[in-house]
């Protein structure tokens, strides 16, 4: 078995049922989420419907990613060679801690005390901002939603729109309180809030000399890196600073430039519900006099790759269509998942990255309705993977009341006379629930069932007894 150190704390939180209960009690959060996910679902559905060959693109996207994973070592070496040949320095990191350390060392070597960041899931996963802060470097998030999260000392709750849980009035109050130099009478209109962020960040873009990005895609045969974005903060960070450090998960590869013809159709329509996102930047090696570094990160990806029934989670292109469509996510929001990867994909990816023994509740954070699979642009069968991971949790944990009950049931049902006796014994349960003809509460461990639902009172006569007397 592959050794994994302590799991990154950015992938594990408190148990989902407990965290979800707190989130469900927040009416404002539920209103914000219902509105936001409802809007984005409708937009996605309309732009996907106008593409006649969507099914073909989806099949191709899944196959390209599977092909990369099937020969990942070859593609990684090819990428490394292409990047190096163009003048980019390539670094490797086994886990989150190592990745954060490599980046921090590169940053401190430049002598800067401030870096600007393009929104990147990989840097959130490795806890980079905290590592930089510990080394005396301030990381400034430049994506509007990430900035909202950072100013509020909050945690992201969505892959694409990390501040999806915040309403406009909350954001206005936050900007008035935390943003240096902001108009004290700032209104809560989104255009005015965006303008305030533009002014605040323009100065950072033109003065800070080191930028940190992720990459949506890394093209193995040419060493081209791709960042897909909307606001232009990505272009600013990729263009203006003299040093650019890109943190890239090892699953972000595509074999050839041509493969992007598939993903640049699948990703924008699935994520923001647009025909194309406003800006996509492609760069191949250091550009216009810059110094460029790429840090290739494992952090549990190879462990995920080792499971043939779980590895398809590595196809994920972080579009967040599954979050926006999920009835569980829509009600609990992202914080309840306790990982930087929330929602259905987070429920299969986070436990695999950390090892399921460190993340036992997430595979159960789903009703298995299957809508996540339907909307996934790379056809990840999340429901089947959740069931598989539930099995892994059951296999690796001590038997609980449910598994003991199931074993007892299997024993009783394996013999017809034994089963008939057990059913008759069940009539003893009629002593309970007399008043409402339902059983509302049972003592532990059976309370695990009745905490959330009533049990019907057993009937006077079993079906078998009735059948025999006919």
């Amino acid at each position, binding site marked *: 078995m*592959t050794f994994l150190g302590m799991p990154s704390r950015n992938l594990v939180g408190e148990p989902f049922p407990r965290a979800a209960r707190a989130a469900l009690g927040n009416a404002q959060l539920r209103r914000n989420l219902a*509105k936001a996910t409802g*809007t984005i679902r409708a937009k996605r559905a309309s732009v996907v419907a106008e593409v*006649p*060959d969507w099914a*073909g693109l989806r*099949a*191709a996207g899944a*196959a390209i990613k599977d*092909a990369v994973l*099937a020969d*990942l*070592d070859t593609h*990684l070496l090819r990428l490394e060679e292409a990047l190096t040949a163009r003048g980019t320095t390539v670094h490797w*990191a*086994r886990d989150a801690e190592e990745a954060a350390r*490599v980046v921090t060392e590169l940053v401190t070597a430049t002598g800067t005390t401030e870096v600007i960041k393009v929104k990147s899931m990989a840097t959130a996963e490795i806890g980079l901002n905290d590592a930089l802060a510990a080394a005396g470097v301030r990381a400034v998030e*430049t994506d*509007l939603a990430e900035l909202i999260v950072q100013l509020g000392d909050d945690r992201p709750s969505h892959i694409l*729109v990390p*501040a999806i849980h*915040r309403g*406009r009035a909350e*954001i206005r109050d936050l900007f008035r309180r935390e943003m240096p130099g902001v108009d004290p009478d700032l209104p809560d209109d*989104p*255009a005015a809030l*965006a*303008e305030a*962020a*533009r002014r605040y960040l323009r100065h950072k873009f033109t003065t800070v000399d080191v930028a940190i990005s992720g990459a949506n895609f890394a093209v193995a045969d040419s060493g081209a890196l791709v960042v897909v974005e*909307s*606001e*232009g*903060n990505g*272009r600013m960070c990729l*263009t203006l600073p003299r040093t650019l450090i890109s943190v890239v998960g090892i699953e972000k590869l595509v074999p050839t*430039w*041509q493969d*992007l*013809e*598939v993903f*640049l159709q699948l990703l924008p329509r699935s994520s*923001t519900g647009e*025909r*194309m996102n*406003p*800006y*996509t*930047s*492609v*760069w*191949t090696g250091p*550009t*216009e006099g810059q110094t460029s570094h790429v840090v*290739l990160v494992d952090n549990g990806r*190879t*462990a995920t*790759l080792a499971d*043939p029934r779980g*590895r398809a989670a590595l196809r994920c292109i972080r579009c967040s269509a599954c979050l926006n469509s999920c009835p569980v996510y829509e009600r609990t929001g992202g914080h309840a998942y306790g990982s930087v990867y929330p929602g259905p994909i987070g429920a299969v990816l986070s436990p695999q990255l950390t090892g399921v023994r460190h993340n036992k509740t997430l595979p159960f954070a789903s009703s298995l309705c299957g809508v996540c699979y339907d909307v996934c642009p790379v056809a990840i069968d999340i429901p089947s993977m959740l069931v598989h991971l539930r099995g892994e949790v059951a296999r690796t944990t001590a038997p609980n009341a449910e598994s003991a009950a199931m074993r007892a049931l299997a024993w009783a049902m394996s013999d017809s006379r034994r089963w008939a006796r057990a059913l008759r014994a069940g009539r003893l349960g009629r002593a309970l629930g007399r008043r409402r003809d339902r059983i509302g509460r049972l003592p532990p461990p059976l309370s695990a069932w009745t905490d959330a639902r009533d049990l019907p009172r057993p009937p006077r006569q079993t079906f078998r007894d009735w059948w025999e007397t006919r």
Partner: protein
Amino acid sequence: MSTARAEVLRRVRAALAHRPPAPDVPRDYRRSGGPGDLDLFADRLRDYRARVRLTTPDEVTAAVVAALRERGLRQVVAAPGVPAAWVPDDIRSDDHHTAGGVVTACHVAIAETGTIVLDHDARDQGARALTLLPDYHLVVVRREQVVAGVPDAVAALAGVRTQTWVSGPSATSDIELERVEGVHGPRTLEVVVVR
């Protein structure tokens, strides 16, 4: 660092011990759409709230000058290779700070998505910062540069090292998923399409 490299590669190979054959990629989606429909292109651009002017090869200068006048600009920066026939010398400026906008050509444009792609190694499209810092970007797109779909554009961009794909002005939907045009990039995108 080299130990990390060796270890990650070792883990990858161990994970793929029973090496699954790489699947064939089914390419039964629309690969080649040929020339793009200019009306569709203009329609898609307007959908992003970009400004669009359709003109003829003889009228490009007039269209550019009219667009700049409407915008209230006397001087613009132009990428070095932009022909004088598009931007007359007397309105060209070298000063990015005082000029209120920038004019460039493009490498390819996509009708179906309303996308314009810049090749930053081409002299008529300029370095990346040129089209990023000004608040107004005017792009001249020639008829033969407009292709139908994304695969056509990707094919046309093979080997182009530094690219920016632009689909409308800078935008955000980060506040309640309500779209706001104009965050960090140019807040106004104007496209002159030459028939």
